[in-house]
């Protein structure tokens, strides 16, 4: 049901899930949290969804791609794959923005362990009818509140996902 344009984003989310599973098997408790930073998730998908809807007529538009117009769609996919039942936070910005949000929430006791991800395309959407693009896992860390508070205890840098 998805349009092609969202498939690389889905693949990027799945790559994060695979990495996180390799680092730690037992994700899921309500104290586990997921933080995703992105400045582009949903942008190309919104453009593509709108272009398709205009082409078919609004009353006949295919709805399958609509959820991927939302910036938190990757977090939803990652969280579902890992079974994370704690906070799921999508920050519209950089990796540092997401890490700051996770660090604050760890310090405030909102969670005790956080997977922090930055997910953005290699090239931002710049046309009204974007083609499927490459997505880059810019940075992924696992942080925990003890010990020490907020310190990354795992790290992975992934190359662009060539899809």
């Amino acid at each position: 049901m998805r349009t092609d344009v969202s498939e690389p984003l889905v693949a990027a989310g799945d790559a994060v899930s695979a990495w996180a599973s390799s680092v730690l098997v037992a994700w899921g408790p309500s104290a586990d949290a997921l933080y995703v930073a992105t400045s582009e998730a949903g942008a190309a998908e919104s453009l593509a969804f709108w272009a398709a809807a205009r082409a078919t007529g609004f009353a006949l538009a295919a709805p399958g791609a609509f959820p991927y117009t939302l910036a938190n769609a990757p977090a939803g996919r990652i969280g579902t794959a890992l079974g994370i039942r704690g906070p799921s936070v999508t920050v519209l910005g950089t990796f540092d923005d997401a890490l700051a949000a996770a660090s604050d929430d760890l310090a405030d006791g909102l969670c005790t362990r956080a997977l922090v991800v930055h997910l953005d395309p290699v090239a931002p959407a710049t046309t009204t009818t974007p083609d499927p693009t490459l997505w880059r896992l810019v940075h992924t860390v696992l942080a925990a509140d003890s010990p020490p508070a907020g310190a990354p205890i795992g790290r992975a840098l992934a190359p662009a996902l060539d899809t």
Partner: protein
Amino acid sequence: MSALVTGYGAVTALGSAPDTWDGILAGRSAARPWDDLADEGFAVTTACRVTHLPAGDPTRRGRALADAALADALALADGALDGVAPSRVGVYLGTTMGESAGYEQATSSFSAAAHHGGALADHVASLVGATGPVRAFGTACAAGNYAIGAAAAAVRAGRVDVAVAGGVEPFSRIAMVGFSRMRAMTPDLCRPFVAGRRGMQLGEGAAFVVIESSARVAARRARARAVVGALGLASDAHHPTSPRPDGSGMASAMVSALSRSSLSPAEVGWVSAHGTGTPQSDAAEAVALRSVFPSGVPVSSIKGAIGHTMGAASAVETVVAVRALEEGLAPPNVNGSSPDPSLELDVVVTPRAADLRWVLNCAYAFGGLDSALVLGRAA
């Protein structure tokens, strides 16, 4: 140290924050059919749109809504930013679609950076002169709760002295198409928690609160409007768009908010429900509410009055909750005077006077996001 609301402002299809409060108490719905949507071929043409502001540039509609709501919030807070170092002022903003018209009217010079929620947060930061934390949440229809909860936590922890927090959602044609084609949208009126409810209705709006520490409020002898308690967050890990039918994620967020605020369910006098009016979501929320509040709790949703303002929804609902605490009045469930008995909820059908000390503001979203925010009466 407590986090206190000293100012609030909102823009909805019913008008300003006072207009919205009065309209809800009167049971008014802002929903009406729109000729432009019919002419453009939309399957659903009824929505709740803001008409009391100039139309302006549609690609900057969110900024215009934010400007109006923020101006009211800052005016009510009366000097909240005076004498505060810009680096000690934080901005926390939530949205679902950002400047949706920016995507709908994209040209070859398109840049998402001009239209996503980060641009809206930067806009607000520039308005208030903040150089402290600027955080934009893309957490869909729960984004307002995320923003206000994070802002209050930052104030309590001393990370900022003053926080401006809220949600912004201009009218989105993309969302009109998406929700209607997913068959999630009612063709007539949104009727939360009513038997035969047919779906959600799209709205637009913005709302902001000004949050200060109790120490600062005392020092400047400001009037506190409400206390912001803890935010509870949870995830369904279930489905991209559908909630868990057992409501367990929703309940987990409620329990987290209450326990982190050192409250028992019995201390909550009213729940501002997510109450979208969709059969699935309302049913799941009812299960969650019954599990967390086995002795019952008064519940209502304002979405029958102003529609679902998505990323702004729980920020608007926070403003309504603050008004409820100030007035000691639980607002009614607009378009919902005949609640579905199978939900077994104490739905507030007419304004109900109550000694409200604590209320719970609930919001959920696509992606399986669950949130609940505690708000309390100012001492």
